[in-house]
């Protein structure tokens, strides 16, 4: 027992001694936002986040390091009278690149890490797991897998079923997120055919709630296959075409099983006509529920607009925007989105749903202080106009 204690003590002393050898880096970021929203009724909203982070390199070349990031959140969401607050460990990531030579590179992250799929329409959140990255002369391959059940329920973002929703709105600030394993593999081949870049991706999630409790109402397991092609149309104009097929199974505690098939197709054009100018247009389609298709369900819950609260299921969205950066310290962006249903719903006739117009400005006042102004107007088909405007200040220390 004494020997084991001595070994542990020696290991801690050795690890502590290594830290000052390779200068640890740290920072503090304060983010404060205030705004107004009128989505049926007028309300104020505030949002505060304090983030502290540290990185510890383990060697002079910084090919292995540990990054830790934690935040305190406090906010008064629009329409709410109660302050929502919680603390969270945003990142606990060990990174290393053990092989980096001509013809092959291997690097990995392990711990609590952010993951995203190649499209951003399926997965965009943090997990507890690992990501393996391989680079070869022909292209790149990423693998990642992880678990979401140890995340704070208020920031887990993997909200798919009714049970997940109930956990996420729990009053318990230490409630855990949905008990789900997530896996992802992406293969990217630059200029696979002529100038066309090729990306193939497989993503899946499996609900472990069935093993933790017998009181679940609904369980959904899904898998997604994506093919993406992109390349130049002209020197300053580029396209991308993406198609995702979703398949899955929904299990209801009292009503058997149902399939969860859907797809999401996206086409995008980017044009850079002059320095500091970017114009883009995008069209997204996912089918309406019918005998074969159910609804598109991403792993990471997200809305298709800013004020528009709907997701990507049963959606045709045409959008366009202009990003204008006249100087390094001042950026402007404008956008418009038209939302249509792919098919009529039980509650709404016709396919037109809403139009949303957004405008924003970012100002870099000093190297450590930035301001972001956002404004959105939503014109729904059968409701009154809604709007939201906010100002955010971000200070780095």
């Amino acid at each position, binding site marked *: 027992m004494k020997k084991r204690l001595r070994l542990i003590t020696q290991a801690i002393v050795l690890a502590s001694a290594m830290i000052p050898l390779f200068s640890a880096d740290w920072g503090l970021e304060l983010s404060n936002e205030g705004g107004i929203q009128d989505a049926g009724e007028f309300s104020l909203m505030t949002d505060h986040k304090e983030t502290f982070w540290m990185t510890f390199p383990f060697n002079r070349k910084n090919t292995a390091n540990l990054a830790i990031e934690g935040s305190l959140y406090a906010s008064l969401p629009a329409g709410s009278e109660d302050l929502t607050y919680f603390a969270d460990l945003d990142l606990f990531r060990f990174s290393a690149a053990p092989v980096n030579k001509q013809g092959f590179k291997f690097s990995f992250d392990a711990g609590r890490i952010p993951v995203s799929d190649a499209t951003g329409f399926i997965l965009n959140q943090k997990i507890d797991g690992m990501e393996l990255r391989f680079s070869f002369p022909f292209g790149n391959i990423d693998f990642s897998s992880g678990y979401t059940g140890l995340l704070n329920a208020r920031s887990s973002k993997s909200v798919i079923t009714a049970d997940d929703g109930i956990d996420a709105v729990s009053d318990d600030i230490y409630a855990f997120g949905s008990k789900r394993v997530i896996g992802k593999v992406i293969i990217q081949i630059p200029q696979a055919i002529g100038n066309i870049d090729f990306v193939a991706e497989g993503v899946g999630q499996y609900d472990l709630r069935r093993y933790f409790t017998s009181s679940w109402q609904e369980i959904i397991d899904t898998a997604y296959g994506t093919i993406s092609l992109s390349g130049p149309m002209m020197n300053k104009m580029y396209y991308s075409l993406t198609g995702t097929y979703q398949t899955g199974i929904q299990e209801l505690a009292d009503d058997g099983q149902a399939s969860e098939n859907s797809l999401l197709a996206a086409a995008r054009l980017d044009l850079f006509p002059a320095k500091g100018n970017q114009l883009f247009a995008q069209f997204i389609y996912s089918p309406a529920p019918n005998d074969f298709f159910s609804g598109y369900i991403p792993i990471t*819950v997200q809305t298709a607009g800013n004020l528009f609260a709907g997701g990507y299921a049963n959606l045709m969205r045409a959008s366009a925007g202009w990003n204008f950066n006249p100087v390094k310290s001042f950026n402007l962006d404008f956008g418009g989105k038209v939302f249509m249903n792919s098919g009529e719903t039980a509650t709404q006739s016709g396919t037109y749903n809403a139009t949303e117009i957004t405008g924003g400005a970012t100002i870099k006042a000093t190297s450590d202080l930035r301001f972001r102004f956002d404004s959105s107007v939503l014109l729904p088909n059968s409701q009154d106009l809604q709007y939201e405007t906010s100002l955010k200040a971000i200070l780095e220390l």
Partner: protein
Amino acid sequence: MKTKLISAGILFALVLGGAYALDGQIVSVSGKVEAQNLNGAWIPLKAGDTLIAGTMISTGFKSEATVKLGASVLTIKPLTRMTLTQLLEKEDTVDTELYLEVGNVKAEVNSLNNKKNGFTVRSPVATASVRGTVFEMGEELVILQGAVVFTSPVGQKRTGSAGQELKITNDSVSSPVAALQNQMETIILSSTPSTEVKSAILATSITAKMTSTPAVSASTPVLLPTNATLALTID
């Protein structure tokens, strides 16, 4: 005697292979432009000076040099340090190779005696190789004319054409649109470690979402699926 025989053998092999070392020539100089001699000392360069393979050249602040390498013209931009590692005329080709340690060079690659050009610029992070073109290379590659093959340290290749710019990101060659996106110099709101894009695929792909992974927003700590298959009934 043995050394003489080996030297003669090498010379004979070069002649048989039809390879001849060429000299470069300084065309113009402005500001402080120096070359390192065999003793390691830095000597100022002037128009008309000859450069041999192995010469290291350095330019100072607001200084520039134009060098003729065969029929090609190289402009060495300010604050650059580079070495002319090879300048060889072969039977069918003229091979020129530079090592760009730091800074920026512009190369106008022309054909000498109607021979093909093998013109390569290596840097610590990438290699650009061309056949008949005009390009600039520093931290990123700007192709002004023709086509350039840009190679990452891992060996990934991407051919860029006139008007395109390529860059090495996460040890991979980014797509031209990702490089253009990068040139927009959009102000980054948050730069904590969790916003860092570490995947070469996400950093270099046109299809990946152009923004880094967003930090969790407290204003929307919980997003519920509005179009989920089951209507949520939450008290």
